């Protein structure tokens, strides 16, 4: 059992969720309420990581984040390290890869709020920010929580893109999914089995807790 890999996976999932939470709320809300030209294209772009093979996304990330690309050069200039094959690079890849999981359920959550309830909030004198805090978030939060749980669980399980962008550096980029792959390659079936079981347990627990929570919310509002 590679505890360092598990810790790294949890750390990666944590940072992905922390960074994507505001994105999920603001961008999900934006897509739910605004109509604009090219909205279908934007929504398609958000969904793209869901259908693309991780290798394709990983390839483009390698190209754009690498030392010869502007972003990679800028990062190197500011932080003195390279972005690819590092934990920070993994976080960037993970954020992009999780966009559909973070945005879609939140968007659905905001869309489920009847328009006249939002109008009532503004007629009650609430500014848009206050309306978001007092009315929209309390009503949309099951969607936002679902988004975050999916993001968390999905990051734990991500393999292809991590391998492409991060490789398998112990303590830096070797997540639990990569560690399992390494163990299988080394015919260490028992270690692979233990880690697989741990991953199943964590993912199942997270998702089950969310479902239980959202069922309670459903009863409260029903």
């Amino acid at each position, binding site marked *: 059992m590679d505890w360092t890999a598990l810790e790294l996976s949890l750390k990666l999932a944590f940072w992905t969720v922390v960074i994507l939470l505001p994105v999920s709320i603001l961008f999900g809300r934006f897509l739910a309420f605004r109509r604009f030209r090219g909205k279908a294209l934007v929504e398609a772009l958000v969904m793209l990581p869901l259908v693309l093979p991780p290798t394709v996304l990983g390839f483009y990330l390698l190209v754009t984040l690498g030392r010869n690309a502007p972003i990679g050069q800028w990062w190197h200039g500011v932080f003195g390290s390279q972005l690819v094959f590092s934990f920070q690079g993994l976080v960037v890849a993970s954020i992009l890869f999780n966009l559909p999981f973070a945005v879609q359920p939140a968007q659905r959550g905001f869309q489920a709020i009847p328009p006249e309830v939002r109008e*009532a909030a503004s*007629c009650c004198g609430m500014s848009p920010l206050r309306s978001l805090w007092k009315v929209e978030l309390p009503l949309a939060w099951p969607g936002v929580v679902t988004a975050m749980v999916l993001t968390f669980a999905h990051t734990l399980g991500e393999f292809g893109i991590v391998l492409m962008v991060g490789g398998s550096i112990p303590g830096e980029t070797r997540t639990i999914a990569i560690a399992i792959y390494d163990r299988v390659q080394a015919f260490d079936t028992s270690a692979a089995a233990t880690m697989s079981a741990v991953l199943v347990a964590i993912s199942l627990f997270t998702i089950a807790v969310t479902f239980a929570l959202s069922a309670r919310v459903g009863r409260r*509002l029903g």
Partner: protein
Amino acid sequence: MALEVMAKATAPIPLDIAFRVEPGELLALVGHSGSGKTTLLRTIAGLWTPARARVAVNGTPWLDTAARVNLPPHRRRVGLVFQNYALFPHMSAAQNVMAAMDRADPVEAARILDLVNLHGLGDRRPAQLSGGQQQRVAVARALARRPKALLLDEPFSAVDRATREKLYAEIIALRAHLKMPVILVTHDVNEAQLLADRMLVIEKGQVVREGTTAEVMGDPRALHAMGVRELAAMLPATVAEHLPDGLTRLDGPSGPLFLPTVEGAPGSRVRVRIMAHEVILSRARPEGLSAQNILAGRIAQIVPGQGPGVMVHVALGGHEIIARITRRAADQMALQPGDTVHAIVKSMSVARDHIARAPNGE
């Protein structure tokens, strides 16, 4: 604190309307769906902006497209009761009311909930309240905003008839507390006649007729816009006696009226809506007739309709009753203004929800 409204637009619906509502006055916007009445309400609230419009309260503009003034809804002091109430489902009734206050005040919230007869129900969530109770919460929430204009968008359309009768009575009682202009949007002429001081009949985004309900009822074009079957007169009356056979005797402007049980203690004043198509006219006082109400009066005017009908306005002791009869009958009887006739009204032709308590001071 008068409310002035002007709105012109071509899309999504044509609109060319201007009107004014005085403080404490209740104006009914009446028209079929798609006539533009809800759009007007949304314009006042700031939820929609027509191409050219001006909305001002007490001279202060909320919206003036010419001067590029357009306050967002949350900066207009407006109370809006939505057709389906749009309560916040995650908040209790009291929290809903407090959500509209500048500073949440539980004591004030309880007072307003008492005002709309929701005493002790402040802790319930909307899902735990009946339709009528939800409507009362919506009214309470609108009042909690301390609005400079109160807007009611078809507020009685989502409840059953029995609840509606109660809510009518409550709105009438609440009028004494409403010092601001009130606008009621409705397609129900009965509702407008029972509750409003003035009516504005709208068709295809234009004003067909504006005036008191009696004035509007005398205008054939307004009748056409409302549906001629809605033609009716309002008679004031006082409850005199509840009879053992289930009828109530009322004292009307020209003698007694017998109607099926009218709620209210003897002495309470009510208004009775009498549908014009239910009224029969007779030159002589008829005998041997089942109808219980025979009211003698003098023909004030005869208004021709667009079809085979005419509207005969009969003056009775300072008020009017309207009979919609055929032109043929009017010709056969040779009816002329000034003639004395008897208006015959079946007791059973007056529906329960066509009787409402008279507003205070009437």
